[in-house]
């Protein structure tokens, strides 16, 4: 028995070691740094300052503002892209629809295209009034133009729409996969019972996808919370700090202000938030139960 346990540890060892080095070490290091004054003037020799950095955050920082932004960014992105992915998956899952695979192939292209390039391209597309979004697409749809420099709302629209473009194929794929694994018989029985499309959706489709939605939600929640590039490239957190999230702010704190200690403290606080929120979701969805 003991030998068996040791033996199975051997299998889990590689990932544990990697995680210790690649996640736990940086985490510990950041916690450590956040208690010091490592910054431009104390770069090679720094000292312990206790909770000073955390106090700065709560006393001087834009804590609530950033929290609000981070939530708008995360929830706004997630809701829209999950809905989009879900609707597309439902559409693609109709058996009497022709050309499904072609559409699917086209629709996953944004995912397959180098993201760092896409974001730059989108930056160009959103330029007001020259980018194609403002010059062609939005006027075509009779929508007002979007200028992220002059309006916070516009900045959020720009960010979330771009993020949607980048990520909806992933959600579409996951939901499409899940939909395909629902046994046809369930629908056949429902048909015999005379259920309409809505009843079928709410009694069969949605419950069958509950787990998938939960798993995808928590994974993507963390990813989006920590996602940095779209904001950094598209709006740089502006106007002002109105689209700045914890992570973007921490990054700027580290690399523009060279205040690595404060940046570490911001990162730790941000991480505590995701961990707490993550645990709540994990707890309510019991998603990790299936993985152990």
């Amino acid at each position, binding site marked *: 028995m003991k030998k068996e346990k040791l033996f199975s540890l051997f299998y889990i060892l590689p990932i544990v070691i990697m995680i210790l080095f690649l996640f736990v070490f940086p985490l*510990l290091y*950041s*916690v*450590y*740094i956040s*208690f010091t*004054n490592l*910054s*431009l*003037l*104390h*770069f*090679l*020799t*720094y*000292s*312990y300052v*206790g*909770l*000073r950095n*955390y*106090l*700065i955050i709560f*006393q*001087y920082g834009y804590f609530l503002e950033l929290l609000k932004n981070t939530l708008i960014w995360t929830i706004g992105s997630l809701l829209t892209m999950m809905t989009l992915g879900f609707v597309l998956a439902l559409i693609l899952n109709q058996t009497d629809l022709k050309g499904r695979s072609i559409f699917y192939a086209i629709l996953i292209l944004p995912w397959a295209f180098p993201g760092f390039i896409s974001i730059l391209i989108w*930056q160009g597309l*959103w*330029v007001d009034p*020259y980018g194609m979004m403002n010059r062609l697409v939005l006027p075509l749809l009779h929508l007002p133009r979007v200028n*992220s*420099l*002059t309006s*916070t709302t516009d900045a959020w629209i720009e960010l979330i729409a771009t993020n949607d473009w980048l990520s909806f194929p992933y959600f579409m794929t996951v939901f499409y996969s899940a939909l395909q694994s629902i046994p046809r018989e369930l629908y056949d029985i429902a048909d015999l019972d005379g259920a309409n499309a809505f009843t079928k959706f709410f009694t069969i489709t949605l419950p069958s996808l*509950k787990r998938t939605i*939960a798993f995808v939600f928590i994974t993507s929640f963390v990813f989006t919370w920590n996602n940095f590039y779209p904001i950094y490239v598209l709006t*740089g957190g*502006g*106007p*002002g*700090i*109105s689209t700045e999230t914890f992570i973007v702010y921490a990054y700027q704190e*580290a*690399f*523009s*202000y*060279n*205040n690595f200690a*404060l940046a570490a403290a911001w990162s730790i606080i941000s991480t*505590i938030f995701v*961990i*707490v*929120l993550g*645990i*709540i979701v*994990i*707890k*309510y*969805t*019991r998603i990790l*139960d299936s993985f152990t």
Partner: protein
Amino acid sequence: MGSKVKKIDYKAISKTLVAVIIVVVIVIAIGGIYAYLSSQHSSTPMPTTSSTSTSVTSTTTTSSVLNTSNPQALMQLVGLSTAPSTPVTITVWNSYSTSENQAFNETLAQFEQAFPWIHVQVTYGVGVGTSQFETAAKAGQAPIVYRDTSDSGGALFAAGLVLNLSQYLPQSVTSLYVPTAIKDWELNSSLYGLPDNVNYIVMFYNKKFVPYPPNTTEQLVQIAESVNKTYHVWGIAYGAGDEYGYRFAAWFAGFEGQIFATNNGKVVPSLNSTAMVNALNFWYNLTYNLKVNYLAPSTGAGGAEGQLFVANQTAIIFDGPWDLNAYLQALGPNLGAAPLPLVSQTGLRAAPFIGSTGFLIASPQASGATQLQIKAALIFVLYFTNYQADLRLWEVAHDIPANLQAYNEALSQLKEGMLKPTYLNQIMEGILEQAQYGQQFPNIPQMAYYWNSFHQYASEFFANKINSTQAVQGMEQAFIQALVQNGLMSALIPLPILPPFQYVLALISVILTPMVVVISPKKRW
């Protein structure tokens, strides 16, 4: 059965939770203790290696004329009588652009011929002002030589990552460079780098739309309006909303403002002034009321400003000579360059930062360099900022020389109209003229905290979120806060190491409240 299983599951999850909480607590505790312990060690002041450098300078012959092109003279200057028997390798991070690299490579070939015992390992294409250098320095892997801008070099020097050249070179080397340029590299009367060129922004205009370069802001507005009316293109493309304050500093100065003031011998920000209000309002007016300025989302030749300028969609932009080639290619003889205009309200010139790029040498803690490597690096930086090297940069890439001799040579070339194509002479003259109306680029560490403070409130102002008074108050406050947070200004309320009781309580409750929610048994999702 079902309920039983549920119960077991619930228990398991909360056990996990407890484990996670314990892990988090342990992690934080270990981190804290470790930080505390190691700070006890590291807080003992380290003997700075530079002070033990056995005063190399004493052996230097303070010869009347320094000739940094002569290998022998260079070696003597750093205290070497003969070439060492074993070769020395120095690592160099090069931040030149592609065209500048042509000049660099030529100089490098000559250098390697002159100093066969120095092997130069070049990393091309490094950015300036990069955090890469800091991270590498933290790991003790910084390059021995780095080419950076004077202001971010100043920050590196303040951080102790860069060698104090004053301890290695005689004061007389400063005479080799254009005074404004070498001044950019002095902090607390220490020299921390040697400049290879001078840079600042100028006004580029398109002769197709602009009949004469505006000399005052009144003229600027006039021209912009008439261009707008006649040609239906933008008069100016200046993304004041996407500004970090590098270019805006010129207007700020023109409206009689100063970034820093001295108060009881201490440097304090002085952004909260009518000058800033006026400068902001001036550009707001051009953008929103007269609608002749395009509030571009990105700057430079690759940004929206440059692209509009290149596409004949705007008459005037403000940019530096580093983008000259792109504009020259696109506009040819239509391209004009002139100094920024006089601010009519004050009668003062809009004065851009006269910055400089140059070579600096990493401190031994940052790069792990030996004394011999440092000597080789000194030779390198002197050689690459000498007359020939700098003139080459001017000829190939039109960099404004920082080497005095090369600068004078460039001026005489312009006077004789020797540049080809001929219209380039006029452009370069315009660019060089700007140097007379510049302001010194502050390189004190405080400067590092100016950019974001300015940006945050300027962009909110141009997004119509706040008025100009709020903006200037905000940026000043943010600036002060940043300085306080980084220990560059004393705080109004001193920050204790151990937080007040209520903060600890608040922090704990912030962390624990959601956890309590988690632990409380609830219906399954």
